């Protein structure tokens, strides 16, 4: 997990939380030469480096299992190289000086590079649908396992924040003025703090004694109807939990995609206050990673860490500590009230 926190080399939640005063959180990156051959590295734009390094770290932790499929979700792909090539075409009367940015701008560049480095010929897909990108990738991984087409799927979510992306979406009021990320929820203005990250996972049909024991019980995505209706969200959650063989009474913890936007956070607060049982604990995370299309990957990482350690890190906690074990953990996220997603995790120990 490469993120704006010290998660690169950490196996659990980092001891210290990084505070930034900014309108965007920037990843703490490893020395890529430790993970990628310099000859290949030279050609790679930042997002490719992030993707490859985090995939490599994940595989190392999984005893270098050979994946039966490689699936990536990215909302923006290699936006930086796309912008580069586009501006060359526009500004230089189509006299382009380099072909590499064009090649890198294909959305499946990260997945393709991973396959090339591993010499892996298996199923390889890239999803690029905004706030659904990561969850679509995760669902596909689950489907492959159900279909018995794969035992171990390498899947991940990755997005990079570029200056141009900040600028354009700033026009639309996406961002707050620079502030401390630790005060994200306390700030009552509209907008949020931008982020980025790359998280890769091995989704496996088998559990293993020395690997994290989070079991994925289900993934669900939906587009919210317009005008937005909180009851609709509650209904979707109820149906999702029912299909997974459980209900809201059994959910022990919920990780909410609260991002500090006074308008868009309302649905999260409504659920937190009105929907779940009294014993349910609530968490938030976007003050740590920022808001980006595949932030759900950070949430999944956090969820699996919480389940394994049976402990909610203080800096992510919204509610008082409960003594109940955390058996079912629900992740609920949406991107500006449009793409909503739910992931249900269960602790494999119980």
């Amino acid at each position, binding site marked *: 997990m490469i993120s704006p926190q010290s998660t690169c080399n950490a196996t659990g939640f980092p001891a210290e939380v990084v505070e930034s005063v900014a309108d965007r959180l920037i990843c703490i990156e490893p020395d890529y030469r430790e993970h990628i051959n310099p000859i290949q590295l030279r050609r790679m734009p930042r997002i490719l480096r992030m993707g490859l390094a985090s995939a490599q770290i994940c595989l190392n932790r999984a005893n270098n299992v050979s994946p039966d499929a490689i699936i990536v979700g990215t909302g*923006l792909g290699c936006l930086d190289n796309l912008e580069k090539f586009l501006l060359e*075409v*526009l500004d230089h009367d189509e006299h382009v000086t380099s072909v590499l940015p064009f*090649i890198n701008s294909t959305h*499946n560049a990260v997945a393709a590079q991973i396959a090339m480095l591993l010499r892996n010929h298996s199923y390889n897909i890239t999803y*690029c*649908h905004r706030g659904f990108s990561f969850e679509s990738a995760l669902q596909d991984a689950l489907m492959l396992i159900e279909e*018995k087409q794969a035992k171990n799927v390498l899947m991940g979510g990755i997005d990079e924040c570029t200056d141009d992306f900040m600028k354009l979406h700033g026009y639309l009021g996406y961002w707050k003025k620079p502030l401390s990320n630790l005060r994200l929820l306390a700030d009552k203005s509209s907008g949020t703090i931008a982020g980025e990250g790359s998280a890769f996972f091995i989704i496996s049909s088998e559990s293993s004694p020395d690997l994290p024991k989070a079991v994925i019980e289900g993934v669900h995505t939906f587009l919210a109807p317009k005008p937005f209706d909180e009851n609709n969200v509650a209904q979707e959650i109820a149906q999702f939990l029912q299909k997974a063989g459980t209900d809201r009474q059994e959910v022990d913890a919920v990780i909410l995609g609260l991002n500090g936007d006074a308008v868009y956070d309302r649905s999260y607060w409504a659920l937190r206050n009105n929907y779940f049982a009294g014993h349910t604990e609530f968490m938030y995370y976007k003050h740590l990673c920022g808001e980006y299309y595949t932030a759900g990957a950070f949430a999944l990482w956090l969820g699996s860490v919480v389940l394994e350690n049976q402990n909610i890190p203080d800096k992510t906690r919204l509610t008082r500590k409960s003594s109940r074990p955390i058996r079912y953990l629900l992740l609920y996220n949406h991107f500006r009230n449009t793409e909503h997603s739910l992931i249900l995790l269960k602790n494999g120990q119980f």
Partner: protein
Amino acid sequence: MYNKSQKYKQVMYPRVYVTGIGIISATGNGTEETLDSFFNLRTGIGKLSLFRSTHAGIPVAEVKYNNTILAGHAGIYEHVNTFTRNTLLALVASEQAVNNSGWTDTQEKHTGMVWATTVGGMDFNEQYYRSLLESDQHKDIIGTLDSADCTEKVAARFNIRHQVTTISTACSSSANAIMLGARLIRTNRLQRVLVGGSDSLTRFTLNGFNALEILSPTGCRPFDMNRNGLTIGEGAAALILESEETAEPDRIICELRGYANVNEAFHATASTVDGFGALLAMEKALESARLKPLEISYINAHGTGTEINDLSEGRAIEKLFGNHIPPVSSTKAFTGHTLGAAGAMEAIFSALALKYQILLPGLNFEAQMPELSFKPCLKADPYPLNHVVSNSFGFGGSNTTLILSKA
């Protein structure tokens, strides 16, 4: 011991049928115009007229409507200027497919959507990006620039709110969208799914392929000894896939019987010369369809007309089919290479071939490739077709093969 998983497998895997198709390309708007092009061997490749370019001399395959006319066909009468060409194409094709399938109420079946595109709203990127970097004058189109815009606009048109997503894997994108759609049905997540892909012609792709030196200066010549590159096209293709449990029998066009996606893992833009990836994709697709090579009636090849692809794919076909190579052709000399739309477009052509029991012709062919024992079929002749292979191989080594069968 009773193998519970086997029984579960049977219940789990309903057949998947194609019940609706919609298409717009350089060959025409809708299946009738497209078929007419095939019967009359009329290519859609011609001169660039959509925008000004330094490369105006390079042949392209444009949809013969400007955005205003496309908007009319797409049923858009307000805020026309906020719809990218890509989205307009997607709406036109989707509307056809939905109507074709008899779909009237989205909520009557569990319905989803999987779309595909390679460059999304790039036409608006080209028009407005410079201006956007300088001021917010055109901020109302910012949401149209990415790859999800056309998917969400089409989903909104038909009120599809669940299982909506977009795939982008270069030239195999919409073939992969079809594959995912089928799997969503077979794993009982959906009963019906709108799948397909779209891409509009842009300076971005024209210049990108030109820098890679794989554009044909004459119009592509798939499987010809003197082939000289690919021709970029544009368009959109949509299919409605339905579970056998809920499909209406008289709407069934053909069956989506098998599919496979593999990765060449060789080079960012080129395939191996021995066709390893293409062979693997076709083998796995046949395996998934439980068919032998002998049972394939026709191959709609990826056949871009580049030196490497046609050699690579040709060799793979030789290896797999041995002495029993069925008729092969590439329809890209009619439509150009429509990138994100290509896989779906060619799946539709395969469906039409099965429905009307005809072969699909190639064009611009004069001399057989010395490395291959076959040449493409060149006329839309009547032919008994049971199972058709449709190949889509893309940048990043993404190779997908679909198998469609007579219903």
